[in-house]
């Protein structure tokens, strides 16, 4: 699949934003951080910035962005529509919760209810994002039970890295937040590696012979292409570079996306001569690079069934 920058930015930025939103809300609800108005203000502002940049970026690849509002209508069948509805719905309880935090209307059951509702909505939104891909039967590497939960776990892990940066800048960092990041990053890494192994060992179930129905006469080889230069279908679904370099890029994704952020978060637990915000920045920058590579690979490695009509033997 063609890795469109708009969709890579959308899934990574909004994922990290919802991760931070949910973790900051949980930290506030459990009194793990001081309910300082400016910590809350900055934290929610950063979450909303990531989420909104992501959502806006997802409209960049639309042919008609001005009609994007129509996407809220088909939630009965479409995961993309569900994602849109949940993304907007999440602004409501989290926004009210954030206002409560800032104006010190905290402590009541209404505030707590709004907070937990926001956490659930954030998770459901990211799950819907994952299901947009996981629901497509045409792409084997996406139509796997790991895909949607992995989106949620990666959102939580990247959110935890952002939360550490926020807390170290405000001087409110505690060991629990470092441990949270380490545990989430490590489990996301293991889950992602398990997904890569599963995606490779999973047998390809469709063949060019089945796609054309000509397999009964022998091997089917593409001879005369129907067009002289790539058409939309090939431009969108015939991408190959990712598969060629998958191994190298996967290593880079693991090192930058998980290993370095885990090591930097571990440095926060130790007493290091360097300021803690510096380690948190290292984790954030490295994590961003790694997760962008991971997401690029998610698209570039995915093989669409339609490639069977264009010369691939199996999909």
């Amino acid at each position, binding site marked *: 699949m063609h890795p469109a920058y708009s969709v890579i930015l959308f899934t990574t930025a909004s994922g990290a934003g919802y991760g931070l939103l949910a973790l900051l809300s949980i930290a506030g609800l459990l009194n793990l951080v001081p309910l300082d108005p400016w910590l809350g203000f900055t934290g929610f502002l950063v979450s909303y910035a990531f989420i909104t940049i992501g959502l806006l970026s997802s409209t960049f690849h*639309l042919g008609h962005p001005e009609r994007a509002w*129509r996407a809220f209508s088909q939630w009965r069948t479409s995961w993309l*529509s569900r994602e849109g509805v949940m993304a907007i719905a999440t602004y409501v309880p989290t926004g009210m919760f954030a206002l409560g935090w800032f104006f010190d209307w905290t402590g009541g059951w209404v505030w707590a209810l709004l907070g937990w509702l926001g956490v659930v909505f954030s998770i459901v939104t990211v799950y819907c994002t994952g299901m947009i891909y996981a629901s497509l039967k045409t792409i084997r590497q996406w139509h796997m039970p790991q895909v949607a939960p992995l989106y949620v776990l990666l959102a939580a892990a990247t959110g935890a890295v952002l939360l550490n940066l926020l807390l170290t800048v405000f001087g409110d960092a505690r060991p629990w937040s470092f441990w949270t990041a380490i545990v989430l990053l490590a489990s996301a890494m293991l889950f992602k590696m398990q997904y890569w192994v599963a995606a490779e060992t999973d047998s390809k179930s469709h063949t060019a012979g089945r796609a054309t129905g*000509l397999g009964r006469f022998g091997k089917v*080889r593409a001879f005369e292409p*129907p067009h002289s230069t790539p058409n939309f279908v090939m431009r969108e679904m015939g991408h190959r570079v990712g598969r060629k370099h998958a191994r190298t890029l996967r290593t880079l994704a693991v090192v930058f996306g998980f290993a370095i952020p885990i090591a930097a978060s571990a440095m926060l637990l130790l007493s290091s001569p360097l300021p803690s915000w510096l380690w948190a920045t290292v984790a954030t920058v490295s994590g961003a690079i790694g997760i962008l590579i991971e997401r690029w690979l998610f698209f570039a490695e995915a093989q669409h069934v*339609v490639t069977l*009509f264009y010369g691939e033997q199996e999909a």
Partner: protein
Amino acid sequence: MTSLPKSTGKKLGLVIDLDICVGCQGCVTSCKEWNTGGYSAPLTDEDPYGADPHGAWLNRVHGYEVGEGAEGRTVHFPRSCLHCDTPDCVTVCPTGASYKREEDGIVLVNPDTCIGCKLCSWACPYGAREYDYDDGVMKKCTLCVDRIYNENLDPRDRVPACVRACPTGARHFGDLGDPESEVSQLVRDRGGYDLLPEMGYRPVNKYLPPREARDVSSAVLIDEPATTKNEKTSAADRFFAWADQVLSR
């Protein structure tokens, strides 16, 4: 809207005879000619006279080599929307622009509500949908919905443009939901089949297999065609070409 109808009154579709298709591309150009002025207008072509011509076409004809040596054969393979009974391209649509008609089963895109998210094209295993980069909406075969019911046309012209154009009679149009229709009988007689039936989309269009070869004594072997490399032009393309080289070391 994007919920599928429980059942459709008719199942209008095509039956394509791979035994007699000669790959002349007549159906392809006839389709383009009709539809660039019809329901799907415009069907934009990008860079039509330049180095990288491409555009939205609703019907494509592949040429395949099948089998080895004397048993080998060339099969011309037209590919367009199969107007599936249970297609995912309809249900994934977030706006309801992609829909399946209850009265005759035709799958259409409403060009006024399509946002151009391209998800339907990802959901289709048959590559039937082509995005119009210029128009910003998805284009697909309409089964010439603006011809088949058009009382201003001569009755013999009230068939899809591709069917009307085919010089060898390799394309048939009719109601595949009616077991007594000519197309249904053709499918029964010739062993018509579905593409990728295991995916469960229940395509309406059927393909008739090539008949067994009668004489294989004059078969000729052909070399594999050489692949050509596209020129890398944009900065992003050059960056990836560079990344490709670096990572290949």
